[in-house]
């Protein structure tokens, strides 16, 4: 039933899908980390409107489906005159959606840093931004590595959303191969293998990292 010939017959499609899945994941990974850090800092500033803005951002994107976020960029923005391709809107949607989760993870990490430390830093003359940058964030990031790496794993899996907006990723090509060959199980099995090729090392690395952090404290 499982016939690996399919993987070779459609190697071009599968490889391009794998490549695009990897690109989308890497771009969204970097983007969501940066965006998430900014939002986390916003969430904790002493300036109230900014804090609200950060909260609204996190609550909004954590409570609506990823597919909807992607549709907002793919179909909603064109209604306002901005046209983004399936790959671009899928990757942006993925970035924005994941960044809300990362922001929350980072915030939890920042809160875990004793308040006394930042008070001490502030009273020794550092500005708020300097305190964040040099005292709080470096410690917090250590605490939040496990939850964040978990989000990255989710991100790779969630990148399959590109398949729905014609983003030429692995899921998209699995679907195309299925449509052309009428071999659903086979076409999906090959895609599953390729996804596992990306995700299993990632989750293994996550666990290793977690263990190492737990040991060093």
């Amino acid at each position, binding site marked *: 039933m499982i016939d690996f010939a399919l993987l070779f017959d459609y190697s071009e499609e599968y490889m391009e899908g794998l490549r695009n899945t990897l690109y989308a994941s890497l771009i969204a990974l970097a983007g969501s980390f940066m965006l998430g850090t900014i939002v986390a800092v916003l969430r904790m500033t002493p300036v109230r409107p900014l804090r609200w803005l950060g909260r609204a951002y996190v609550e909004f994107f954590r409570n609506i489906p990823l597919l909807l976020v992607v549709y907002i960029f793919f*179909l909603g923005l064109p209604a306002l005159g901005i046209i983004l391709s399936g790959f671009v809107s899928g990757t942006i949607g993925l970035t924005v959606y994941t960044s809300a989760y990362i922001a929350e993870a980072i915030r939890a990490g920042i809160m875990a840093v004793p308040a006394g430390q930042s008070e001490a830093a502030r009273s020794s003359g550092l500005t708020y931004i300097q305190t964040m940058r040099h005292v709080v964030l470096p410690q917090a990031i250590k605490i939040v590595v496990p939850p964040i790496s978990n989000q990255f794993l989710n991100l790779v899996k969630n990148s399959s959303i590109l398949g*729905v907006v*014609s983003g030429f990723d692995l899921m998209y090509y699995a679907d195309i191969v299925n*449509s052309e060959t009428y071999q*659903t199980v086979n076409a999906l099995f090959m895609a599953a293998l390729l996804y596992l090729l990306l995700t299993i090392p990632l989750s293994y690395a996550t666990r290793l990292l977690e263990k190492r952090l737990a040991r060093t404290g």
Partner: protein
Amino acid sequence: MKQRQGKPFTGILLVCMLLVLSACGGGNSSGGSGGEGTVTGGAGEAESGIIAKIKERGKLVAGVKYDTKLFGLKDPGTGVVEGFDVDMAKALAKKLIGDETKLELKEVTSKTRMPMLNNGEIDLIIATMTITEDRKKEVDFSDVYFKAGQSLLVKKGSPIRSIDDVTADTKVLGVKGATSIKNIEEKVDGLRVQQYENYQEAFTALRAGQGEVLTTDNAILFGMSQQDPNYEVVGGTFTDEPYGIAVKKGETGLVEAVNELLKEMKDSGEYAKQYEKWMGEAPPAE
């Protein structure tokens, strides 16, 4: 202390059990109204005598499009699905069971129709399906009931006027599982079509500016240009797409019944009437 700690867990578990029960009940009672979620007949039962099975069940289960104007389009307001394909299904229900209302429609897309037929979820496909040699290996087709040909839909004023204007860099949209993808990719070297789940999504993507051209059969494109007059069909047809009604391989009895119906409808003038009702013109001479 121990007792009090035990409660939240047992509570959550109980609530979940209740949810399962209530949702099961809900799922069964309301599944039918949506046309989804009900089992129709035993999928994977004996192959022979599907007509007998349809008669015994008292209804015909046909897979039609829900998103294709003129052939099968669902109105969100009324929930009614209408089109040429739907009318063919009604006529067939009348012929087989004697009552055109003894019909259950199920939504199919170009991608899902083959597996749904082969899994026994539907008795036949009446869904703008082109008869091809490849597909004949998977299913059995009736005689041609509609002659379409592949064409192009563009925004009015587009520089693309025919298939000759399409190059490898043109952004072309299509639908997963449709013959039109292969056709145009063979005609235009190096072209890569962006494929969507169904025609509605592809058309929405076209209107959102995600592509310059949407390609599929002319009849479907005419329906779209009726939905939004800012779009037009250009360049005539560059392939022949004869539509057939598909049944599970080996169900020759049903194929014969469909062919008989087609002949009857053509002889009585009923076919021409239906054709004109949806297409706004008389069917082409044979």
